[in-house]
């Protein structure tokens, strides 16, 4: 591991310093857990800033259907886990892709796109990865308006 990883407080102060008002909320939940909320335009900038600080490992991308918007959370960090959260409106669910920052993010973005419909612009292969071949287009299973029906007995 190169360099020393920053402490939780250092992460928060760094982000506030670099992004200023774009940081809508930032809190240290407990040891090694930081939750930060940024606005959509600064989502990628926040991750770039964190990478400069030494938080340079993307663990996962979570998508959450929050009613009118879809929240995308990037979990970064090896020791300290920083959850960088942003919201995109359901009518325009676009975010810049993170693959130039983290090439391995390609498969995470595919999953969030498939399940929730968030389009990551710049992802070279935003294609089906987990749903079957004949899955209907435009149906995003993890959205709250999608309800699976129970299998009917055949006879």
């Amino acid at each position, binding site marked *: *591991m190169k360099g020393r990883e920053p402490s939780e407080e250092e992460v928060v102060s760094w982000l506030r310093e670099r992004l200023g008002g774009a940081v809508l909320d930032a809190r240290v939940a407990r040891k*090694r857990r930081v939750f930060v909320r940024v606005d959509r335009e600064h989502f990628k900038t926040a991750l770039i800033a964190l990478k400069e600080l030494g938080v340079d490992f993307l663990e996962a991308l*979570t998508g959450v259907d929050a009613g009118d918007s879809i929240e995308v959370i990037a979990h970064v960090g090896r020791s300290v886990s920083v959850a960088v959260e942003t919201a995109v409106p359901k009518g325009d669910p676009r975010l810049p892709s993170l693959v130039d920052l983290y090439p391995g993010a390609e498969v995470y973005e595919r999953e969030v796109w498939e399940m929730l419909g968030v389009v990551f612009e710049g992802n070279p292969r935003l294609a089906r990865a987990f749903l079957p071949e004949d899955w209907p287009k435009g149906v995003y299973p993890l959205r709250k308006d999608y309800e699976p029906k129970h*299998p009917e007995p055949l006879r």
Partner: protein
Amino acid sequence: MGLYLPVGPQHPIHPEATLIKLKVEGEHVVDADIDASFVHRGIEKALEHKTYVQGLFLAERICGICNVAHTTCYTLNVEGLAGIEVPQRALWLRLIVEELARVSSHLLWLGLLAHVVGFESLFMLVFRDREVVLDLMEEITGGRVTSGYNVIGGVRRDIDAATAYKIKSSLAKLKERVVKYRRLLEEDPIVRARTVGVGYLSPSEARELLAVGPVARASGIAYDIRVNDPYLVHEEVPFNPVVYDTCDAWGRAMVRVGEILESIEMIVYALDHAPSGEIRARVPPVFRPPPGENVTRVEAPRGELLHYVRSDGSEKPYRYKVRTPTLANLPAAISMLKSRGDRVVHIADVPVIFGSIDPCICCTARVLVVNEKGAAKEFHLDELAAKRWAR
């Protein structure tokens, strides 16, 4: 002129249904992609419809062999979210069972590696030795593989002195065998010929492609959640993460075998030092954690496992996300499968490479199958296959 060679979805090397699409020229692999959609079961969605206690049973069945890692992560996640205090002894017992499951998983993997390189005898012998571990699991938890041990609030059963003694003596014998296997990996010329230099993943690639677990640790990256983000009582149990820098399948094998030995040490230490006391805090079957979110990370046998939960104050989670280590290692696997320059990948290397990331596709792919009309239907694998190739 390339030949498209599908390895899967049903193939002797796959313990689960996966499709590895290979583009081959002669014996060399020039391109690869992985389709992990065959075992998708809809677990994340299902977890939103279950109470937290019901969800535990679902989380346990995300994967058969990693079930202890998933329940450890799930219970810690929910307990952190709801502010449930777990007794100290329970944490120590959880660690013992988690490390025992790690030994079981790594031994399974070693047997599979032997099978993949055609070393049937080693496969047979490793599985025979693994029986020792499975018997111990059954003694402690009641189940050989799916343990049903972790519950929200603690663990279900205690380990008494007699069981502890049995564990220690069985593990002592197992340790001797594993030391022999390590020597075999270091010295057997054919096993070395099939794994040294195969599936190369440079440290920079491992970093960029976000590899986790033994895959990263075999490329020199010392990343182990038990060190970086200790959970349970890992801060009190001494251990050394096993790191190699050979960046190949052999390195990954050595990392895993080394981890078996480390885990055995940890179990013995924990058995000697676990405090006495309660093993379970009683939790009502339906409870409503305050609105909030939590992230928990656990070092599963395959790498870093991450669970994220968000509560809206009701008795069911608003969102539950599981990011498994095999998903994190998929980009690295695809990169390792491609021939590049003078680093040639043969068809014969494909099972070795794919196996060296210790794939657990059950963990990775989770969805329900629905047809156009919106009616849910249970699909069997052969039906799916028939549909697919009929086009």
